[in-house]
């Protein structure tokens, strides 16, 4: 069999949510891409796995052939139904995206930068005072949700409750335990109730925050955003920003801990941190991939796709494609990442990319400044058992100067 044979695609059991995949993610995607640019997985209800960079880019670009209307996840998400605008195609997508974009633009993030810096400094100073900590729960998992909740206008005193409910939902995503599932259902209902209460509050007393805009904005057709849509928008904002930015921070910290000369260089030349961040999200995909619905019969990457098939655009594989990136598995601070699909590509390109870039830069600069002699205990670093959403660490223990 050859990969060019459109009648007989490579069939795999590729399952991005499996523990097996989590333990071998990078090797698995690198191998699969070289076996077939598009393979068929018999996991879930069956789906195409697209691995080569040019094809992943093309799938993201061609929203007419690869629709978002069945959502961006395989299998479809249970937590939140139809995410907005993630599960929309143009032209409807742009209506909602343009309501959100001003709140996450480079300019908007720049205005919040001093506040973000202050919050990060408080947290990192707290770590220094404690002497030992875990970068995952004690820094990485706190800031992205804090920024998003603040943009929405959620009272800082109540943000901890939101973060805790989301963390439980994310941690237990693959569970089949009925008690845990019941707790997740209660958490989800609690979040929905809070979102609706916040929206009702803003209709009564509008403020300068994103929740007010969602609760009161008039759409071009004269209608208002419904309560159900507000939930679908807020859920995706909270979930999409939560583990992605967190995963990138810990991936970069662990990467440079293995390479002391690179850590030294970034500490000495902090203006190179943004380049290291772009390389980190390329090498350790914070978003593993995105699903699309095939809208018409077509040949793609050497296989024959059928209308109604699902395709998974595997960002993690595309980002290490040697056809696009020379020495693709190496971190190269001088690399041109202009065509990187790490933040997606096309109309759905990551809304939070400026937030992520600024927040990651602030966190790295602050760590280098406030705890320059931190040491990560590499023997106790644990990767996540679930890499289906993104490349994540479960635990990254650290301390001042290596003391426990």
């Amino acid at each position, binding site marked *: 069999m050859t990969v060019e044979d459109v009648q007989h695609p490579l069939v795999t059991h590729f399952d991005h949510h499996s523990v097996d995949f989590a333990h071998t993610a990078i090797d698995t995607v690198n191998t699969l891409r070289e076996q077939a640019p598009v393979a068929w997985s018999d996991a879930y209800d069956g789906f195409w796995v697209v691995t080569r960079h040019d094809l992943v*880019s093309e799938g*993201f*670009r061609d929203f007419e052939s690869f629709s978002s209307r069945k959502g961006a996840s395989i299998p479809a998400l249970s937590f939140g139904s139809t995410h907005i605008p993630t599960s929309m195609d*143009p*032209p409807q997508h*742009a209506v909602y*995206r*343009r309501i959100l*974009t001003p709140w996450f*633009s*480079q*300019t908007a993030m720049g205005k919040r930068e001093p506040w973000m810096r202050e919050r990060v400094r408080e947290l990192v100073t707290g770590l220094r005072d404690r002497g030992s900590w875990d970068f995952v729960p004690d820094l990485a998992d706190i800031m992205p949700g804090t920024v998003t909740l603040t943009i929405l206008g959620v009272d800082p005193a109540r943000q901890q409750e939101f973060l805790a409910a989301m963390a439980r939902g994310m941690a237990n995503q693959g569970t089949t335990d009925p008690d845990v599932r019941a707790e997740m259902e209660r958490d989800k209902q609690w979040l929905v109730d809070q979102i609706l209460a916040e929206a009702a509050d803003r209709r009564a007393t509008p403020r300068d925050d994103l929740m007010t805009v969602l609760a009161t904005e008039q759409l071009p057709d004269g209608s208002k955003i419904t309560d159900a849509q507000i939930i679908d928008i807020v859920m995706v904002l909270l979930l999409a920003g939560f583990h992605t930015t967190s995963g990138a921070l810990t991936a970069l910290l662990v990467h440079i801990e293995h390479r002391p000369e690179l850590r030294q260089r970034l500490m000495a030349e902090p203006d190179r941190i943004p380049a290291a961040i772009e390389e980190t999200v390329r090498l350790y995909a914070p978003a593993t991939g995105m699903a699309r619905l095939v809208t018409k019969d077509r040949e793609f990457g050497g296989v024959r796709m059928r209308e109604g098939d699902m395709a998974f655009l595997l960002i993690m594989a595309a980002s290490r494609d040697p056809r696009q990136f020379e020495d693709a598995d190496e971190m190269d601070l001088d690399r041109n990442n*202009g065509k990187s699909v790490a933040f997606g*590509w*096309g*109309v759905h*390109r990551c*809304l939070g*990319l*400026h937030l992520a870039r600024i927040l990651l830069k602030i966190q790295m600069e602050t760590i280098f400044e406030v705890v320059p002699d931190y040491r990560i205990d590499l023997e106790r670093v644990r990767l996540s058992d679930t890499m289906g959403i993104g490349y994540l660490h479960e635990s990254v223990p650290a301390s001042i100067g290596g003391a426990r």
Partner: protein
Amino acid sequence: MIQVRVDAERCEGNAVCLALAPEVFELDDSGLAYVLPGEPATERQDDVRRAVDGCPREALLLAGE
């Protein structure tokens, strides 16, 4: 014949135009979009319209329709 230009005040380098109309747009060294030379917009009208509609910053301006 149509012409498209990038409003440099609005563009933030989200690169949506580059994805939707790669023959028309490119990113400069600072990561902001510009229109490639040679009036490529005229030959790629459909792509350009998708890019104009898709730009999250509404930073692409069409002229000369």
